[in-house]
């Protein structure tokens, strides 16, 4: 690892430029498009090779849609997705398959994402069959056993069914399935949200180990900022389809510069009863993504909002080395 030339090490593996995903809403007898849900609205970022990029946001922020659009499980409305320098935004299905092998996904719900009628062995071997890897049945069986060991499960359990496993073990099966085809890039969509605290730590540690061992690049999507801080190198904060702030995870948590990040951090209850903090309680709810506020989408709940915020859509600008924020105000004490 140490022999890697710095430029190569920081080369982006996945690049997203001006990505938009608008879901049409149809109405009336002719089912004409009457409006759009602007789930992802002009988002750009890059995931460097070998890094974990955290993507946090509340429900409706568009974080899951970003993950699925990158894998082209959802077709983007506008924008460009590049994988290892190649534009895959409009690749036809037959050419996309080669890239699908390099990009895999781990889902949130370990109960819903495993077929209850397939054995664990078949579930993990399925991607190998689809991509025609490890040709012989024997080689596949060996690979499945290796994967089970890798995620900390007993290889003797290949013939068991998902219901025989606990939530944490099922999530390990989901991880083994994603790793089967030796991907370079993994979208982990809320992989620990459904798990109990003690099990959550096991899975976070496992993901960290696998990332080191296999040199994986991961887009880690979650709503829990503490978990994201733990595993990510850099973190992007989303709100209503836009990236509000992007920085290294250390910087973001110690020195947030966007009013939304500041409020989000202060809203998290800390497991320390002696800690007394000043809490910023955001008023109201997230506005509807069908009709987001003009200008800055956060301005309706922002305590620093000024009239100009309604006029201009703030650009994601670099305000310090590697630290980006989308806010027109750079005069807020404590945030600049």
């Amino acid at each position: 690892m140490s022999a890697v030339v710095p430029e190569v090490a920081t080369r982006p593996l996945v690049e997203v430029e001006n990505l938009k995903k608008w879901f049409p809403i149809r109405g009336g007898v002719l089912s004409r498009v009457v409006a759009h849900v602007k789930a992802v609205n002009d988002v750009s970022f890059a995931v460097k090779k070998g890094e974990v990029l955290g993507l946090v946001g509340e429900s409706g922020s568009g974080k899951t849609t970003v993950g699925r659009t990158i894998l082209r499980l959802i077709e983007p409305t506008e924008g460009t997705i590049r994988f290892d320098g190649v534009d895959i935004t409009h690749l036809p299905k037959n050419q996309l398959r080669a890239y699908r092998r390099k990009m895999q996904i781990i889902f949130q719900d370990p109960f819903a994402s495993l077929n209850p009628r397939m054995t664990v062995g078949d579930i993990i071997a399925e991607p190998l069959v689809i991509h025609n890897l490890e040709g012989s049945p024997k080689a596949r069986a060996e690979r499945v056993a290796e994967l089970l060991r890798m995620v900390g499960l007993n290889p003797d359990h290949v013939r068991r069914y998902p219901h025989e496993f606990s939530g944490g073990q099922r999530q390990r099966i989901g991880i083994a399935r994603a790793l089967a085809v030796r991907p370079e890039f993994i979208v982990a969509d809320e992989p620990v949200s459904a798990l109990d605290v003690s099990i959550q730590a096991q899975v976070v540690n496992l993901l960290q180990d696998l990332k080191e061992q296999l040199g994986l690049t991961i887009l880690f999507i979650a709503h829990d900022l503490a978990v994201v801080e733990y595993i990510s190198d850099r973190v992007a904060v989303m709100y209503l389809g836009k990236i509000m702030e992007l920085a290294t995870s250390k910087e973001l948590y110690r020195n947030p510069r966007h009013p939304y990040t500041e409020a989000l951090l202060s809203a998290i209850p800390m497991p320390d009863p002696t800690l007394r903090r000043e809490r910023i309680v955001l008023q109201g709810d997230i506005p509807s993504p069908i009709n987001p506020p003009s200008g800055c989408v956060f301005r309706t709940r922002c305590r620093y909002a000024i009239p100009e915020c309604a006029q201009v859509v703030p650009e994601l600008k670099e305000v310090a080395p590697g630290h980006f924020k989308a806010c027109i105000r750079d005069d807020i004490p404590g945030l600049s």
Partner: protein
Amino acid sequence: MDENRLVEVKDLEVHFFTDDGVVKAVDGVSFHINKGETLAVVGESGSGKSVTSLAMMRLIPTPPGKIVGGQMLFRGKDGKLRDLAKEDEATMRRIRGNDIAMIFQEPMTSLNPVYTVGDQIAEAIVLHQGKSRKEALEQAAEMLDLVGIPEPRKRLANYPHQMSGGMRQRVMIAMALSCNPSLLIADEPTTALDVTIQAQILELMKKLQEEIGMSILFITHNLGVVAEMADRVVVMYAGRAVEEADVVPTFKKPLHPYTMGLLNSVPRLDLAAAHQQRLEAIPGNVPNPLDLPPGCAFHPRCKFYKPGLCDQEIPALQDAGGGHMVRCVRWAEIERGEAVEA
């Protein structure tokens, strides 16, 4: 029962009789709640924390479930001391909603989708306070105002689906508090909410408790929420209380290895130095409730497990001093730093 106490639960046992065997969901749990205090019950799935709260409301589905033992003493608003485990259904109906109210995790499924929120809040007021519908609706509007819903009179005519998750949880709170209960049971009230909305609801609950003075039984798995809300904490594991203490010692000086493990496995934003270190996970899984390990149910996952000691008898809940209760045979050794890790 002490004048200052509102609730005293003693050796509560709730069993579920299933085709595969008896699940001892709650197996000898005891705790008390003082007037105006918040008691948090923490535990992971299957620990029995929700079953405990449902038992207090006598809402355990029977069959398969049954309260098979123990007492749940409760001092009603009328000053009478009752054992809720033994009261008949008619008395329970008078107590539910009036003396003890409950809010649930999922505000969407716990509101009726075909009635307006005004009607749903007014229902309890009409039932328990004998007011007319008009007076009740008037009071419902005041309650909505109290829980911070803008334009409360207009909102009375809304259906649950017209409101956001945070708003719906506010409606649930308004409904729960409409008859001035002396105990509010909150079962994971913020788990389904986003963190900024969770902050709003927690602030609201604290404010209302200060104004109204009710006691809260707060069921949650989130240790951050516990630290913020609780005066005292009961930690549950596999149907038993393993530790009970005031909130500060629970977090600063935990005595049970499970409580310690739970605290270590939470990623901490407030410990800057912890960045990118490994989390100390508790190995293994929560045991099958049909087949609990012998002795201390936590011993297969415990780093202080001592063969021949921990796997023999269920440890008793001992007082470690100052009302700090712990269910571990090795707690004193562990506290002195003499226990060797397995």
